[in-house]
């Protein structure tokens, strides 16, 4: 399992940066929502090879958050919680926003013996958290606790 370096680019939607104890994820997209979708991919790619997954089970979730950076952390942590409590791993993500209301969708499959095992992510933290505009889009960054 290879974890690409930052920077994330249009062709490499996400990458990883150094943190002593844990792992930094960085993702980019044309919109804040697209960058947050890519951040979710980056986080679940720490746990397994997403290309090997089938999107056979669906999740819909809604939350309110006015602060887009805190929305990024909330989005990632809700996905983690739902994945762990259902024994699933997500591979596809979609996020939409109306004001402070966020609507997310994810798809994935249950863990099976055949799936490559990476490392469990315990939570997305507020450390080095940012969601910032960049040329041609948006960049999302945060450190996840593993």
């Amino acid at each position, binding site marked *: 399992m290879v974890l690409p*370096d930052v920077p994330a680019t249009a062709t490499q939607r996400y990458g990883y940066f150094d943190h002593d*104890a844990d792992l930094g994820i960085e993702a980019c997209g044309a919109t804040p929502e697209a960058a947050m979708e890519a951040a979710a991919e980056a986080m679940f790619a720490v746990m397994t090879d997403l290309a090997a997954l089938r999107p056979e089970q669906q999740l819909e979730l809604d939350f309110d958050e006015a602060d887009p950076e805190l929305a990024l952390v*909330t989005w990632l942590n809700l996905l983690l*919680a739902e994945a*762990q*409590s259902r024994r699933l791993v997500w591979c596809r993500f979609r996020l939409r926003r109306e004001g402070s209301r966020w609507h997310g969708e994810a798809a994935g499959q249950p863990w099976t013996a055949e799936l490559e095992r990476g*490392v469990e992510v315990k*939570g997305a933290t*507020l450390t080095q958290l940012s969601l910032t505009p960049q040329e041609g889009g948006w960049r999302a960054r945060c450190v996840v606790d593993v």
Partner: protein
Amino acid sequence: MMDIARLRQAGPYEWTLPPSAGEGGGEVRLFADAELLRGMDDKVLEQIRNVARLPGLVGAAMTMPDAHWGYGFPIGGVAAFDADAGGVVSAGGVGFDISCGIRCLRTDLSWEQLAPQRHHLADSLFREIPAGVGEEGRLRLSVRELEQVMRQGAHWAVAQGFGPADDLPYIEERGCVGGAEPDWVSDLAKKRQLGEMGTLGSGNHYLEVQVVDRIHDEAAAAAFGLRVGQVLVSIHCGSRGLGHQIGTDYLLLLAKSAASLGLTLPDRELACAPIRSDVGQHYLGAMNSAINCALANRQILAALTRGVLARYWPSARLDTLFDVSHNTCKVERHRVEGRERTLYVHRKGATRAFGPGHAGLPDAYQAVGQPVIIGGSMGTGSYILAGNPPEQNRAFASASHGAGRAMSRHQALKFWHGRQLVDELAARGILIRSGSLRGVAEEAPGAYKDVDRVAEVTEAAGLARRVAFLRPKICIKG
């Protein structure tokens, strides 16, 4: 790399950070030698300086010799707060893996007795101990049962038949911390834990079969029941999904509440609330619930381990030497400037280390102090130390908890490959069993600081004294 020119050396193994003009905040104290300090990221200094700015800090914000850059607090950070002085409780000062810790079990077997079966034992442990991302435990609890776990800790596990009551005195808080309030734990946190009891997790969590390689302190070793050649088993894990979700829930809640509580946070990750506030009390009730969950989890894993060993050595003993927690905020009495005070001691990646005579210790350890476990990497070894009295330990009875990372996980993946590491360690007589070769590579021995130096400095700084060094023989990784 830390610029130690910014520090003032206050003793052979103590350093302080003089406050910058206009910055304010309390004292910063780092326990380490120059070499260990230079090996730390400068962000350790930034993070502990931020901790020193939180209200109600008593004494100094401190780092242990194994400190490294964390989130909010540095890993290896210790800070005590007084509720009567407006002190705070910080979710960032405890972290996501609440009460992550080590249960150390002492067998009456020698390595010579065990060695012929080591491959079978490694395979059996790997099969029977649920470990790694996506693995579920064999227990499935109802919410009501989980709430009992949160209130009763290891006592619940013992009542369900997971090990003897004899274990309980040898667990911090005698197996159950007070102040747990499951009503302040979210439904989502409870849902995450229903299938997680008796699981090891991944990352730096492990179950390790070790052999006592050398004794540093004969008297303390005798009190702990240790002798050279003896086999021990150490289990490193925490409160699993419950603790992760409590950390997640309260980190955001406290970060958002800070302004309304009159707090200006130097770092959002230091999310905290006054201890006397409603939200502060709610966090403490939830955090204590997670501590009890972790104590029960390690009790169950100890019982599973006993079951595996009994297949090969039916009459072997497997007694609890001690069970320490790392990521906690605990209410303790400490003497500060001649006065006994009740303090909320945050230890983030640090071990409680009560000295001889402390009322919190079992009778067997009254003369020598609390066993302190420094868990090292799977290729080097671990130490058992003993707590010192407050005259020597000036860190609110705290000490190092591990070797401490010297290299990020991301960097480690560039230097090592899991399969190669497993083979190299096997050639050195260390059997690794893991479902994640990536996890093995991230935990490469070379990614950690020199555990010998961390233990030496821990002793030299007066935090705890070395009792025994343990060499790894079998390591089950998640």
